[in-house]
């Protein structure tokens, strides 16, 4: 709609816009030029700094690190989806002894910063005799946080299903959990699919927090490769490569979210009600 903000440009405005355009391009070129110059001046483009990419062992390490990132992501994503479904249903229960604890737990884990949670499980839990280790400290924290956010997303989705659907289902004589399983949940999931996927992007990005507790994922690999003196400690090249890997992974997932959103719009089914899903995917790390 942004084009409605301004009139169709007349001759003077066109000239002005072109001037702004040229200025903007100059600024971009200057910015990239400066960054590129600093890279060049500090020798980041010299071949020794990129040679590590050619070694098979290091390539395999990189793949292993990618596997570690994706492994943590997949396990945490599945657990978080299950956690979210369970708590969304519990929060909509008619019984306060389900509703209240579910509400408290979801709010608690949404409020605690993920880093604090990870540090807690990694440093504090062993004092209480629970030794989860690096992988599970990360995965459990990711599950609790993202699961809580997903619970809110599912709940908003189920509440955005028109009331008539639920009433009709009850009128047909379906039981409470049939109404939930066969009527509300499928519609809610379809309406909320884009939001759910963007929350999974957040989860994928959050696996990078494993770096802080030395989980051997992509960032740790970048740090290790970046400290190899035989390649002149190529921390900038490795950071660039790892950054590209993350951007590719996340963009692919985001593209999936965009595709799903367009598809649900096209079929005309299960449109999210515009003002209900205020629960946009929460950004985290």
């Amino acid at each position, binding site marked *: 709609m942004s084009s409605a903000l301004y009139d169709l440009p007349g001759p003077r405005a066109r000239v002005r816009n072109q001037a*702004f355009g040229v200025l*903007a391009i100059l600024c971009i070129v200057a910015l990239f030029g400066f960054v590129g110059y600093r890279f060049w001046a500090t020798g980041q483009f010299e071949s020794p700094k990129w040679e590590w990419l050619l070694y098979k062992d290091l390539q395999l390490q990189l793949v292993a690190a990618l596997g570690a990132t994706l492994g943590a992501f997949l396990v945490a994503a599945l657990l978080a989806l299950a956690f979210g479904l369970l708590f969304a249903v519990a929060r909509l229960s008619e019984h306060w002894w389900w509703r209240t604890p579910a509400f408290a737990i979801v709010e608690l884990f949404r409020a605690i910063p993920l880093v604090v949670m990870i540090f*807690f499980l990694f440093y504090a839990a062993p004092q209480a005799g629970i030794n989860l280790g690096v992988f599970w400290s990360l995965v459990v924290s990711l599950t609790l946080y993202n699961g809580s956010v997903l619970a809110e997303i599912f709940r908003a989705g189920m509440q955005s299903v028109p009331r008539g659907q639920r009433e009709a289902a009850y009128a047909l004589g379906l039981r409470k959990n049939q109404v939930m399983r066969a009527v509300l949940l499928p519609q809610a999931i379809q309406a909320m699919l884009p939001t759910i996927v963007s929350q999974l992007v957040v989860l994928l990005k959050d696996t990078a927090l494993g770096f802080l507790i030395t989980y051997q994922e992509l960032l740790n690999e970048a740090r290790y490769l970046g400290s190899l003196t035989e390649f002149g400690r190529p921390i900038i090249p490795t*950071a660039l490569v790892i950054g590209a890997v993350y951007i590719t992974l996340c963009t692919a997932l985001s593209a999936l979210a965009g595709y799903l959103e367009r598809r649900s719009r096209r079929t005309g089914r299960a449109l999210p009600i515009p003002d209900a899903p*205020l629960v946009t995917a929460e*950004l985290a790390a």
Partner: protein
Amino acid sequence: MIELLFDNRDLFITGFLHTILLFVLAGLGALVLGTLLAAMRVSPVPALRLLGTGYVTIFRNTPLTLVFFFFAFAYPRLQLVDVSFFTRAVLALAMYTAAFVCEVVRSGINTVDVGQFEASRALGFTFSQTLTTVVVPQAIRSVVPPMTSVLNSLLKNTTIAAGFSVLEAGQITPALSERGAPLLIGMFWIAVGFGILVAPLTATQRALEKRWSVAR
């Protein structure tokens, strides 16, 4: 229970002070940069739109930890101006959050009905009059709730700085662990601390929403 708080008050006070400072500085930076980016993304100049879109795409798809990583380890290698870890943490947070602020502001502008723009133009309002007297007052209502949640996340994200030698609230747990203090209680106080910090944000949101909740 309360003894732990008193015995380690140095940790808690510097920790949360740094958290607040990081939050305020990075928040201001992100709001300014994000609004600027949003303005670029709705501008009639294609080059500016492209730059805004590119920035948002890159930063939304990069983990904040990687941005911190870059500022902590890679930045010094570029031999630019030497700045403290704290300043670099503010930069990392502000640049990352700005992408999200931009999206909130932009979608806020998009919620305003096209007829509103057209009507104000038909009445002879200039571009800046349209924006300040018609669009922004309406857009701000739909911006407040998501903006609060962006700021909320920023507050929580400040803890990532803990991994990069900025002593703030996220650093309290490892530091307590070094001192051999009971961490379960320490964790409780950290959670309370964040609760206290989040409360004014949520309260402001509620108040503003109530004030602006006019049927459209």
